[in-house]
């Protein structure tokens, strides 16, 4: 067990060191949600009327509404980014090194996932701090309560990235992933608008949103930020983590999957 924890510590440590050296990437990842928050939301505020829905107890501004969704966006983009770096071979060398470790493969993949999630969470908190500086705040304890929700959501989206990297090799560029994964996941969710709003325009779209795991990730974060537990969301996200993690381990099974064409 000692060796297992050693691997976890080393993989997370490596992610942190790399993160420290890649400040440009960090700032770029921060600019995206901030543009949404400070520009898009400002324009949208007038167009969209929000009623009082849980977990909120008063009327809220649109900016306040989309903060959890943008936290999810950071986790989503980072999860996809790490999968793309694998597809593009940039990180393939380090993956080879990782997978030739004599420890169980599922543990190696899980460690890597936890490492990249830790970095994503750091970015989310930086985003929340900047949002707070602009006056968009949550209950103080909510920031703490959101941590496990962010970790679970980050694991889910990171695992999705791993699965994609092992199964889909045809995606030629980031635009492909944007079109087929990130945009549908993000827009067909409760990140930008509450689901009841969606139901007003289309029942079908509402149903798609309601089964989208990203919706549940966002709701889990939203409720946690207001010190509430959304049990169905927790169930959905946990289930997704287990399924996606299983698929990732299967995809990286040496007898099939990614390495077959990559090597």
């Amino acid at each position, binding site marked *: 067990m000692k060796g297992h924890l050693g691997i976890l510590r*080393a993989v997370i440590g490596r992610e942190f060191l790399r993160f420290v050296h890649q400040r440009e990437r960090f700032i770029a990842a921060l600019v995206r949600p901030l543009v949404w928050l400070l520009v898009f939301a400002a324009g949208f505020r007038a167009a969209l009327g929000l009623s009082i829905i849980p977990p909120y107890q008063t009327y809220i501004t649109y900016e306040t509404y989309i903060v959890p969704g943008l936290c999810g966006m950071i986790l989503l983009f980072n999860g996809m980014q790490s999968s793309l770096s694998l597809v593009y071979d940039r990180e393939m060398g380090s993956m080879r090194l990782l997978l030739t*470790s004599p420890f169980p493969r599922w543990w190696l993949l899980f460690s890597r996932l936890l490492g990249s999630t830790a970095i994503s969470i750091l970015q989310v908190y930086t985003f929340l701090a900047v949002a707070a500086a602009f006056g968009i705040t949550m209950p103080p304890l909510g920031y703490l309560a959101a941590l496990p929700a962010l970790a679970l959501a980050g694991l889910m989206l990171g695992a999705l990235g791993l699965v994609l990297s092992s199964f889909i090799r045809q995606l030629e560029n980031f635009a492909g992933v944007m079109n087929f994964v990130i945009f549908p996941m993000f827009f067909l969710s409760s990140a930008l608008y509450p689901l009841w709003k969606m139901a007003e325009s289309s029942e079908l779209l509402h149903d798609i949103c309601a089964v989208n795991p990203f919706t549940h990730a966002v709701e889990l974060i939203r409720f946690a930020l207001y010190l509430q537990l959304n049990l169905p969301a927790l169930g959905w996200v946990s289930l997704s983590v287990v399924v996606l993690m299983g698929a990732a381990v299967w995809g990286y099974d040496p007898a099939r999957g990614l390495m077959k064409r990559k090597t």
Partner: protein
Amino acid sequence: MTDGLRVEGLSFNYGAKKALDEVGFAVPAGRFCALLGPNGAGKSTLVSLLTRLLVAPGGDIHVAGQDMRRHPRRALAALGVVFQQSTLDLDLTVRQNLAYFAALHGLPRAQVPARIDAALDRLGMRERADEKARALNGGHRRRTELARALLHDPRVLLLDEPTVGLDVESRMAITAQVHDLARTDGLCVLWTTHLTDEVRDADQLLVLHRGRIIADGQTGEIRGETPLSDWFLSRTRAAA
């Protein structure tokens, strides 16, 4: 033979394309074995199978007596690998790169600094320990990877075209260093290459062509009076 590398009946297909066809060979401890093959011969596939990035449906691999199929973790623990493509983190220092690897292999933390120093000393890289990998030239990066591959005291060392992209001097230096490792440390070395000048007459030679081993023996005996490059060309052409 429990210390070296043994491969039996190894076959592998990519869909309908046969990459390896009943490959079998043995390399004893203390031996430098060059695996020579033109591009596309199946070298990379063989390396992936030996490092368990791929698993073949049939055939056996034994690393220092450990069966890769039945005890993959024990077999991998006995194997040191230098991949063709660099696997260093360029933003990390030499020492950090090695420490990361030590953790991946579960080496006791208290031993790690001393082991890193020893491995770097062996390759003459100690004074570069705190430099970032990005600051090193190609030859020194390779040496760092070689030091890293030795960190966990493997019994078998596998190097996949380790001299690709290096200048002549670095190429000669690293070839000599690895020959020394086989001789002085009793390591079993498998060195894949398509460059005949890296192979010495005393080395074991395996020639892989179109997924099959077409020659296995001592280089000097195999080539006779013919220069190895000519011999190699004639054989790979004849077999084509």
